[in-house]
């Protein structure tokens, strides 16, 4: 029952907030805040195991196969994090939107509906339910991207929508295949159904997969790409670096912190139920690892090159999604290879990194939001030195940066170490494991480098324009602080999680709760071996910062945008392919098909009836019978002799054919 409330209360509240906001804006703001806080409190109830058990609920008879929900450790934590992110960004939005009030009604409506839909995905017990809410949130979150209505925002929104629709359709196809191949979409039954498909056909046959097994695999691949589109997985990541920077900052935090995780949720659940444990599906794990590695490195490199605060954070999100995908890939690979222990490690690392990344991005994007609401700029050269005299902001950003870079004692360290460990575990199953390991360490180094770049730029270096620097140090003036206490509480409060989750005791307990893998409690995070990985990664990062970033990516002391603008997968490949290669022939063929019969009739009229253009006559006397008769008979009478001739020709033709046949 509680799942229904968690899902539908925000949706209904959003629908109510819209008319309310048209009457009274401050009432609406209060209402929205209360709703998101209530959602947080309700979601915390799930921690009680009795209530958690009662969350399993099926709303039968509607849609295709009803909506069903349930809550386990993982779902509970993500339901809580979702609500927490919404409450945090909601409180921050109160100040963020003080100046920009246009379109806020719409914004709040869609924020709340998306909250409900996200909870719907996170609590879903079958893929169909996930899909329904996934599509809803795809479309509602679209309005966040386009909210500002600048030229870039509109462009980014189109890209976002295109990827969302395409991803949704691919996902739809995946669901179809899986439903047909396995016969069920319930996560609980899926594993058994897949095992059955293997048992029924005498598993281990060297001839490859049977039809059903092939369909399950194809379905899982489609689902990977469908959900991956929302997660920002290569090659469907194109929307992410464009959409996150243009959205309002609280919305960026949600897009980056939670909506990407919605995609990950789908991938994780599908691979762990339908794929894991089947030896024959090992290739799927390799595919995830490959895509994850590309996403991880590409995101990190893009982030290094970026000179826009929010774009850097967005690319960083993409890179971190790559880390998470690697975790999933390793979990699947190890479980397909029968090494349940290693799989447990990878699984724990994955979920922990998800949690960490959500919380870190909440902090970081809110800090970016503070920058935007004060000076409305994001270019690193312009905002340089903004945070020099703002200790609280500086501390929060530093904590986030330390967390995401995986510095020991902060939260990212534990999750990254677990992921690293799992790669080492999989060395026996994957030939390229050393390559993967070094890629992993390199990407971790990049993370450190770009976070260092951001931190030093915004909080340490001085702006090159002394007047600007003075105005930054002065703040908005008239005794007003640069952010109010509510926003400060949100930002600083959320940044404290980096420290709390940096404690192995807390983190491992959390991971054990989420995955049910109790052995994780005996994991030694600070063993020498593990520290070594982190140190290597940080050393790579320091090197990257000192040499390439400071030497190559800066021109005359300014951060230079050296990423070639033409190197854009969307403009370079997707658009030409879609419009020139696919659409053009299709439209020509369609035009021919569409007019074929009409052309035939026209041809017949021109030849057999020899219809000519008549001088313009008044045609609006349609119901005049004489006129009509005349119109109808005229061409026939006029061309009677011609018709006779054609008939004769026809007879001749028939005669000819008959003669030919009789011969």
């Amino acid at each position, binding site marked *: 029952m509680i799942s229904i409330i968690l899902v539908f209360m925000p949706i209904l509240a959003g629908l109510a907030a819209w008319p309310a906001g048209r009457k009274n804006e401050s009432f609406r703001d209060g209402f929205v805040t209360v709703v998101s806080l209530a959602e947080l409190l309700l979601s915390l109830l799930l921690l009680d195991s009795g209530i958690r058990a009662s969350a399993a609920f099926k709303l039968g008879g509607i849609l*295709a196969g009803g909506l069903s929900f349930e809550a386990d450790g993982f779902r509970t934590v993500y339901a809580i994090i979702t609500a927490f992110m919404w409450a945090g960004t909601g409180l921050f939005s109160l100040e963020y939107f003080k100046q920009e009030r246009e379109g806020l009604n719409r914004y709040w409506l869609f924020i709340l509906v998306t909250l409900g839909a996200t909870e719907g995905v996170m609590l879903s017990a079958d893929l169909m339910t996930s*899909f329904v809410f996934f*599509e809803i949130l795809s479309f509602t979150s679209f309005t966040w991207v386009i909210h500002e209505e600048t030229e870039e925002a509109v462009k980014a929104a189109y890209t976002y929508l295109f990827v969302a629709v395409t991803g949704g*359709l691919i996902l739809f*196809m995946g669901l*179809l295949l899986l439903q*047909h191949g396995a016969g069920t979409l319930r996560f609980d039954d899926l594993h058994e159904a897949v095992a059955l498909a293997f048992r029924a056909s005498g598993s281990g046959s060297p001839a490859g997969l049977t039809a059903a097994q092939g369909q399950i695999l194809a379905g899982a691949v489609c689902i990977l790409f469908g959900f991956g589109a929302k997660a920002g997985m290569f090659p469907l990541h194109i929307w992410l670096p464009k959409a996150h920077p243009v959205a309002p900052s609280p919305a960026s935090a949600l897009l980056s912190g939670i909506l990407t995780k919605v995609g990950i949720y789908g991938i994780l659940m599908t691979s762990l139920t339908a794929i894991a444990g089947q030896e024959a599906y090992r290739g799927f794990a390799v595919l995830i690892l490959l895509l994850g590695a590309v996403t991880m490195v590409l995101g990190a490199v893009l982030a290094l090159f970026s000179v826009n605060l929010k774009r850097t954070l967005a690319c960083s999100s993409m890179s971190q999604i790559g880390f998470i995908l690697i975790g999933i890939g390793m979990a699947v690979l190890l479980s397909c290879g029968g090494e349940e222990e290693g799989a447990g490690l990878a699984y724990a690392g994955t979920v922990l990194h998800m949690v960490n990344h959500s919380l870190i991005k909440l902090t970081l994007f809110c800090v970016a939001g503070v920058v935007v609401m004060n000076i409305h700029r994001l270019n690193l050269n312009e905002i340089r030195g903004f945070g020099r005299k703002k200790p609280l902001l500086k501390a929060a950003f530093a904590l986030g940066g330390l967390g995401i870079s995986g510095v020991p004692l902060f939260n990212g360290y534990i999750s990254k170490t677990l992921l690293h460990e799992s790669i080492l575990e999989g060395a026996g199953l994957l030939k390229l494991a050393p390559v993967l390991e070094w890629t992993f360490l390199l990407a971790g180094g990049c993370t450190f480098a770009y976070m260092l770049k951001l931190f030093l730029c915004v909080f340490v270096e001085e702006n090159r324009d002394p007047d600007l620097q003075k105005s930054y140090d002065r703040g908005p003036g008239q005794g007003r602080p640069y952010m109010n206490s509510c926003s400060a509480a949100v930002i600083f409060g959320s940044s404290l999680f980096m420290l709390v989750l940096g404690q192995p005791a807390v983190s491992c307990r959390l991971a054990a709760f989420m995955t049910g893998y109790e052995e994780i409690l005996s994991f030694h995070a600070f063993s020498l071996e593990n520290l070594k990985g982190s140190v290597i990664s940080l050393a790579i990062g320091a090197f990257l910062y000192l040499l390439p970033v400071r030497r190559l990516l800066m021109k005359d002391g300014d951060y230079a945008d050296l990423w070639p603008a033409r190197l854009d997968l969307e403009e370079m490949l997707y658009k030409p392919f879609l419009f020139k290669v696919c659409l053009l022939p299709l439209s020509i*063929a369609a035009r021919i098909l*569409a007019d074929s019969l009409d052309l035939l009739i026209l041809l017949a009229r021109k030849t057999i009836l020899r219809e000519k253009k008549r001088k313009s006559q008044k045609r609006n006397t349609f119901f005049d019978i004489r006129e009509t008769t005349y119109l109808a008979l005229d061409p026939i009478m006029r061309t009677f002799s011609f018709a006779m001739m054609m008939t004769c020709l026809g007879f001749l033709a028939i005669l000819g054919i008959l003669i030919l046949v009789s011969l």
Partner: protein
Amino acid sequence: MLILAAILFPIIGGLLAACLPLGKDRDRRCFYGLVMAGSDLVCLLAMVYGQEIQLAALSDRVVLALGFDSFGRFFLAAVMILYTAVCFYSFEYMKMEKRGETFAAFFFISFAAMVSVCAARNLLTMYLSFEMATLSTVPLVLHERTKEAVRAGMKYLFYSVAGALMGLMSLFFVYYFSEGSGTFVPGGFVDPQAVAGREPLFLAMVFVGIVGFGTKAGMFPMHGWLPTAHPIAPAPASSLLSGIIAKAGILAVGRLVYYAVGTDLLRGSWVQYAWMILALLTVLMGSTMAFCEKNLKKRLAYSTVSQLSYMMLGMALLSRQGLEGALIHAMSHSAAKGCLFLAAGAFIYYAGIRQVKDLRGIGRQMPLVVWAFMLAALSLVGIPPMGGYLSKWKICLAALEGAPGLFAWLIPLVLLVSALLTAGYLFPLVIDGFFPGRDFHGEEGYQGGRASLVMTIPMLALCGSALAAGLFGGSIAGLVTGGI
């Protein structure tokens, strides 16, 4: 008797609407509203309590009979929803047009024709009602009396008559291969023994019937009239034509295949293949043409061509699930496309906009209309929880489960490509309408005020019905296909 009353009541109402000297605008609207409400009431009663009735029996084989089964009830429900919504919408819209009385008269007469198509109990009655529906809707296309309108009307008439005659020919053979008066039986009544040995003739004739009745549903190659005739009519009429009258073709083909011929005789035959190929071609062709089209109403008409063939595809799969998908799609498309055409009408009525590119920023002026447009578009693309999603799911799943050979993959693939195109030709319009960008200041360019509630409420109601088709369509369609 009730069923007969349900047909006669709107006819009489329509004739009165044409003849009664109702001077004032308000009186006229009152009268139309009353006739519509009365017709709905009688129809509802007929649906629930209507006894089967035999009108005439020229011989024991040529019988005119009316009566409802679940299939007929299902379509009648769709007819009633759309006609009622359009009736209220046209109160406002028809202020713009001349000859409102004629329009009202044929509006109600065509309603009666549609009721009788739904209520037909045997093939012959269905054929007669089908022709009646064609003839009574031609004046709706002709309404503007411009040169193009007359030409489009004639095209509509010729195509429809040609199609119906093909259908009639196939009926003769269906009667020839069976006994009795051709009363519909779930699963078909054609005698397999009579067919045995003469399959080629029989299958060819069934195919002619499918193509013939498919003319009304705009199936390639007989689709040519649809994109010409639908956009030329006044918006309420286009909404009816696309929304429900084209569904008469679906109904007729459904009756022919599922209630007369029976699926067993067709399964795996060349007729099924040809039917699926034609439907697939139409789906792709319609979507692509709609994507390339600049005129809004014409774009919607091409979209109808494509969407109607989704239903054809569903039926061509000859399985229960496929038929369910087709029925749900009929329901949701009827509501969604009806709503889209009504919205297109509102753009014409208030802002005089017919071209897609001029719609930029329209959402600021009539937010509710664009909202309705968006919800209907979501349904058409197949985004859950709107109706189009459920029907697509069922059709694709039926294809994976039952379609022969390559088609099992081809059908879902084509439907998804078509859905992508659908998104491509509908969503940008909504986005530009709501989010014209910062530099847009064209609001003063539009005349007229906000859209009146008389127009927007029917649209939103139709969206609600598309949503209901998604939520409850499965169980409703399950009732209809129970016997098949």
